[in-house]
């Protein structure tokens, strides 16, 4: 189709918004770790952004969006962006290069989210190798399944802006990584309080802001669908924030971190649904996400699992709920698709299958990759380095 300047304008802006989410994750996480690891935590997000950006233009994009190979992965036609031009292709109304870079910022933020489980204990060198392997072996196929014409898309699974690709994949990969990376020294015994809560709140603001690009940009056009995605995104975030706030209030006090964690839970859950549900459903989706992720966080802590910054409980479980909720609340009024509430059991089943498959694939492949990297390069820093903190030991800097 011919290029539409309005659609292009919105996706240019949306891509910039989503780009901001990667450092946003860095600041959100950076405020949650101890002071001796703040810089290292933020630095990871910048390093992820740089490394995955180059990886994506070189071969990531083609693996995800190249011509379908067996429903599993893309072919190499777009290697080094060859054939990805300034004009739209297919039914798109935006330049192919723009679609490519919109997808790029999704890949970077997904890897950034995953840094949760590396917090305060992993070598930056090994992390970089791991990140490239993970993006190649886990992210690219998952993106292909859902958006690149892979089996999941063929089956009819709905995932508007990346519930499975981004959130389930990073969340359950983080869970798998706990098995290989192990706990921080002193976890469960020493206090590990957030070192800089205002910094986390800033990161959360960047995330909420950027998420409008993430979800409303996934319409790939400046139209009513984008507007709907924008509205339900904000509504679910708000409902999630309120739900988590109330739940934590019930147990004690309404912490500011609880409010923003609830918002992120709501944002995660609405991500796959944002092109299919309306605002009233978004309230339910967001509120349930807030309550669910809050209890999953408590569960994780009770179990003594050091998935340090709650990528699994918020992104993983929020993503699962969002994928399922899409199959429940999808309404024809928004985008023609229906869910369980409209009697479409089939869609619901498809959503469950896609979810389970994503979890299994991400979990198992991450385990394999992490095991290999750990066996060859070693993931953990040495004990003294962990004690000293990664700011000094990995980056030679301090706050």
């Amino acid at each position, binding site marked *: 189709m011919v290029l539409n300047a309005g659609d292009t304008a919105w996706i240019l802006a949306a891509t910039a918004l989503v780009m901001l989410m990667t450092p946003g994750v860095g600041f959100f996480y950076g405020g949650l770790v101890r002071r001796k690891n703040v810089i290292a935590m933020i630095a990871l997000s910048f390093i992820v952004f740089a490394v995955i950006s180059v990886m994506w233009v070189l071969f990531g994009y083609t693996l995800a969006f190249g011509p379908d190979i067996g429903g599993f992965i893309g072919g190499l036609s777009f290697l080094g962006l060859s054939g990805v031009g300034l004009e739209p292709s297919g039914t798109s109304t935006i330049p192919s290069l723009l679609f490519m870079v919109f997808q790029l910022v999704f890949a970077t933020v997904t890897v950034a989210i995953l840094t949760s489980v590396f917090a305060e204990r992993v070598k930056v060198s090994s992390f970089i190798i791991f990140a490239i392997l993970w993006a190649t072996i886990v992210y690219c196929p998952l993106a292909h399944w859902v958006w690149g014409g892979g089996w999941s898309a063929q089956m009819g699974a709905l995932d508007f802006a990346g519930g499975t690709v981004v959130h389930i994949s990073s969340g359950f990969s983080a869970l798998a990584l706990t098995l290989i990376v192990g706990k921080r020294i002193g976890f469960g015994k020493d206090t590990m309080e957030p070192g800089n809560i205002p910094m986390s709140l800033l990161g959360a603001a960047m995330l909420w802001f950027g998420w409008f690009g993430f979800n409303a940009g996934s319409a790939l056009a400046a139209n009513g669908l984008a507007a709907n995605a924008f509205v339900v995104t904000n509504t679910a975030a708000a409902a999630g924030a309120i739900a988590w706030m109330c739940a934590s209030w019930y147990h004690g006090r309404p912490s500011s971190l609880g409010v923003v964690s609830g918002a992120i839970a709501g944002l995660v859950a609405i991500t796959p649904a944002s092109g299919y549900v309306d605002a009233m459903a978004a309230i339910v989706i967001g509120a349930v996400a807030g309550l669910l992720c809050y209890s999953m966080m408590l569960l994780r802590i009770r179990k003594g699992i050091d998935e340090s910054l709650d990528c699994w409980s918020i992104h993983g479980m929020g993503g699962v709920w969002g994928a399922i909720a899409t199959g429940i609340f999808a309404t024809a009024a928004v985008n023609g698709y229906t869910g369980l509430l409209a009697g479409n059991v089939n869609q619901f089943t498809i959503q469950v299958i896609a979810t389970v498959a994503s979890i299994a694939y991400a979990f198992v492949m991450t385990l394999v990759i992490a095991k290999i990297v750990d066996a060859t390069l070693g993931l953990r820093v040495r004990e*003294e*380095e962990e004690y*000293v903190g990664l700011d000094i030991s990995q980056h030679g800097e301090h706050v």
Partner: protein
Amino acid sequence: MKMIQAIIRPERFENIKKALEEHNYIAMTMMEVKGRGEQKGVQLQYRGKKMEVDMLPKVKIELVVKDTDVDPIIAIIRTAGRTGKIGDGKIFIIPVERVARVRTDEVWT
């Protein structure tokens, strides 16, 4: 009266505070400091050459107590703060000649 100045691991602060509390030593002042011990802090291997990393974040607590409380408090801090590794910290005992309260006109020695 003595002032006990203990320089401890930040991660152990809550532990030590709670232990002191249990023995009814409540009053204290704390501040964030940086420090290194005789071992020159931690030594990090770095690309062949050793690199000294010094001035690591520490917590300093100060308690002004009766002379007879000094020994028990040292014992409590040791029990609650010890990991057995370099960096556990040091305790200094300094004489205090007088203590005055701002709120009232009390003074004691």
